[in-house]
């Protein structure tokens, strides 16, 4: 395991220099589809933070205590996906039960992110990079915050852009991709501050 890296370094790197969305372009589909309004983007962002933080830990446990001892690390893709899907399902039921408000603002987004590739991506990176348990948690949390930051800024930009005159052929997804590219360039300004790969 890579001991040298402090958890806070991983945490901040996951938000800024190694933003999962803007440097790895993972989680792009919901990023483009649900970034039309800041309010919905916030809801989805919160759901991603929550799910990423928990599933990275669950998958770390499953990987190191089930797959590694049994020599089954090649099965990590399918196991991670099953765990993420089951966990999201469970959380959705619980949220729906305990809080109407939380369900309305967060719960209905959960099914949307079960299949979000950023969630699986974080679990796979954590394995590839040999993070410890604590580091995995902070990596998941940081990636979630980074993803939320990106989608909320994107939604802010798109809300403002409703009034601007976008060339017809670029309206919608085309323009969104261009904005995402410019945002990625801006985030590259952070690189060099930290490096965790």
């Amino acid at each position, binding site marked *: 395991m890579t001991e040298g890296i402090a958890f806070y370094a991983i945490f901040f790197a996951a938000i800024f220099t190694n933003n999962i969305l803007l440097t790895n372009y993972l989680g792009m589909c919901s990023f483009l589809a649900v970034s039309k309004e800041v309010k919905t983007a916030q809801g989805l962002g919160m759901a991603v933070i929550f799910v990423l933080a928990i599933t990275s830990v669950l998958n770390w446990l499953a990987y190191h205590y089930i797959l590694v001892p049994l*020599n089954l690390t090649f099965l990590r893709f399918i*196991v991670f996906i*099953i765990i993420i899907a*089951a966990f999201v399902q*469970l959380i959705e039921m619980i949220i*729906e039960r305990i809080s109407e408000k939380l369900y*309305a603002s967060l719960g209905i987004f959960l099914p949307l992110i079960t299949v979000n590739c950023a969630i699986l991506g974080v679990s796979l990176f954590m394995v590839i990079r040999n993070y410890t348990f604590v580091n995995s948690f902070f990596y998941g949390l940081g990636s979630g915050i980074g993803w939320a930051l990106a989608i909320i800024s994107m939604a802010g930009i798109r809300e403002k852009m409703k009034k601007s005159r976008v060339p017809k052929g670029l309206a919608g997804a085309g323009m969104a991709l261009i904005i995402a590219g410019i945002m990625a360039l801006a985030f590259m300004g952070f690189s060099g501050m930290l490096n965790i790969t």
Partner: protein
Amino acid sequence: MGAFLIGVGAICGISTFLAVIIVVADSTIANYGDVKVTINDDKEVIVPGGRPLLASLMEQKIFIPSACGGKGSCGLCKLKVKSDIGDYLPTELPWMSEDEKKQNIRLSCQLKVKKDISIQIPEELFNVKEYLTEVVSLVDLTYDIKQVILRLIESAEITFRAGAYIQFEVPEYELTPEPVYRAYSMASQPSRKNEVELEIRLVPNGLCTTYVFEHLKAGDRVTINGPYGEFHLSDTDKDIVFIAGSSGMAPIKSILYDMLEKNIDRRARYFFGARAVRDLFLVDEMKELEKKFRNFKFIPALSEPLPEDNWMGETGLITEVLDRNLDSGDNIEAYLCGSPGMIDASIAVLTNKGVPEELIYYDKFA
């Protein structure tokens, strides 16, 4: 071999473990017991909790109109909720006007019933029932419009006002993995209690129309539910202007035959828009009606008559023909059925002539 077995075993083990957790959670956390739905302060039904209101009501054979089948994409299944059930869901908001929010109108397909709830629905929806029917005949009225006659099975009877529509259940077939519902106006008049006549126009790749045109045969069973709709002749003495295009013929035909049977002898003119002669249908029936009524005129208008049509009647867009034939909007009530474009353009002409907007009734289909 060993690794293979361990792999399969591990996946099965993990999946089973998680499945058990989900099943347990489903029957404990997601189990809301039975809840009571009070309808119009009068009728009470008990339904299992945790399911969407629309589906729960449908199981109780109370049919709220819905075109998308509960996916929250048509915005039709609105109803008024009188008890407190929390804030609007983000999936409901796009369909709600400020006025509706004040009245606590909700989208019933998105609402999950978790506790006792009191709702208000229009009385006539109680009249809405599901009917099993048999296809009696399928006739090509034009190259793209079919007349479908369905007979209600077991001599059931449907009670409705002329101009109403039903929903046609398309069973699963190669274009759809689950049943879908599409709305069609009834062309038959209310006195034909035992059958329903529809006029269905082929929409390329339409889920329902493809089914009707390519799969449906005489003798097949079809499930419908209804009647629905607010498109009815009002009870006044004003002169009537009917305007329809294509399969918009259906509700107007129903209203006309109903008027004939009830001896309603108001002055009526019926403008029917089509492209060419090959798009006209039921012209003989309409000519027959002209003889039976003292004061009814059927005015078909062709926008692009073909040379071989030898068309002697009105030509031009329906709006132009309407403009030429209608001197003033005094004492006039208008009933429109057709595409949104045609309806909007006709409303503009009518209001221009002085017909008040509240006397223009229409049934738009997309």
